[in-house]
């Protein structure tokens, strides 16, 4: 793929944050998210929507910074001028939720956001069933990786019914069944791939068809 070697590191050999601004960026992202103007699927879409050259040329928290700025602008919470100038700000917009307070941080992180929902219908697929990932290339947010599209796999587990990211990124939870689907490496990468290796994804029901 051309991305080169990995730089392995352990807990002991790498800083959690490489500079204070990275820690601030993490905190700003979580705190701004708590205002209730976007969900995690929308925020992932904001980051992955960066131009590829920008995305691959940016460090991880730089991607977060650009993503957060676009989310804030789209939500009408800040203007481009305010982001550029920093010093002069107009009146704040009304937010869906008040600013997160320090005492709320621990409970918020501990609660998380469970993504399971009541199923709208019975699961279409069953454990052990052979399925094919659809050959579809949506321009919006999706969690179906390109490398499995059109490939044949096996349902490893029926995981439950979850908020569907593809639609939730645009505000519609549309809960769907989610399955772990296992693919042989040779199915994904060809006959010269390792015969003793598999790759699995967690696929939402709309991503799958029954095997022909």
């Amino acid at each position: 793929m051309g991305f080169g070697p990995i730089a392995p590191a352990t807990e002991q050999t790498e800083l959690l944050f490489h500079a204070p601004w990275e820690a601030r960026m993490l905190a700003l992202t979580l705190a701004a998210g708590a205002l209730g103007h976007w969900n995690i699927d929308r925020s992932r879409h904001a980051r992955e929507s960066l131009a590829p050259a920008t995305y691959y040329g940016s460090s991880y928290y730089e991607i977060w910074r650009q993503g957060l700025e676009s989310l804030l602008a789209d939500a009408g919470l800040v203007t481009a001028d305010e982001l550029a100038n920093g010093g002069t700000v107009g009146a704040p917009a009304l937010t869906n939720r008040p600013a997160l307070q320090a005492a709320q941080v621990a409970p918020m992180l501990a609660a998380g956001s469970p993504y399971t929902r009541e199923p709208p219908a019975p699961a279409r697929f069953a454990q052990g069933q052979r399925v094919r990932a659809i050959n579809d290339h949506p321009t919006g947010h999706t969690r179906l990786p390109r490398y499995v599209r059109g490939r044949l796999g096996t349902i490893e587990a029926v995981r439950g019914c979850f908020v569907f990211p593809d639609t939730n990124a645009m505000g519609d939870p549309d809960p769907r069944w989610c399955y772990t689907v296992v693919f042989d490496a040779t199915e994904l990468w060809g006959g010269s791939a390792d015969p003793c290796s598999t790759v699995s994804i967690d696929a939402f029901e709309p991503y799958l068809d029954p095997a022909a």
Partner: protein
Amino acid sequence: MVAREHEHEHEDHSELSVIAARVRALESVLIDKGYVDPGALDAIIETYQHEIGPRNGARVVARAWTDPDYLERLRTDATAAIAELGYGGRQGEHMVVVENTDHIHHVVVCTLCSCYPWPVLGLPPVWYKSPAYRSRVVIDPRAVLAEFRTELADDVQVRVWDSTAELRYLVIPQRPAGTDALTEDQLAALVTRNSMIGTEVLAPAGPAQTEPS
């Protein structure tokens, strides 16, 4: 360890200070507008620097090794079992454990972004979030493991788990040989962060580690 921020007055046009300045500007705007509270920002940072990290996952692993009933609960409902030890919440709402054996080795990735089980492992390392790892571990996991000096026999099945939904995976590495006499705390100390992602295995205990203290 925390990198020191240089509060020099003179102009410093390095790329790092440009980014730092932009983040400072962003933070100022958000605070001035009352959207974020500085105390909350500090609390978030403190949490992930000092309170939530891989030592949590190491405790889960050590408990799984020593308590067969706990392991069974992990297999049935990992989220609930992990919560028994006090860990859970954001980016760990739907946990699954996968157990390494003599015949199967698991390794976890998020090819699409950087999904990672925060409550048990803390924040992901740079390498996990890198395009190199994200793209290569699904194509050639053994080559990636080799970069971590992890070698597996050809007949060990490598199973890569791409975290494409909200399920989060914790690898239970194999318990090292020669650790029968160790306490649960001592066992937890042997569990590395990378072994719980699956890029490393745990070496057999040396003489110094096999003695209970």
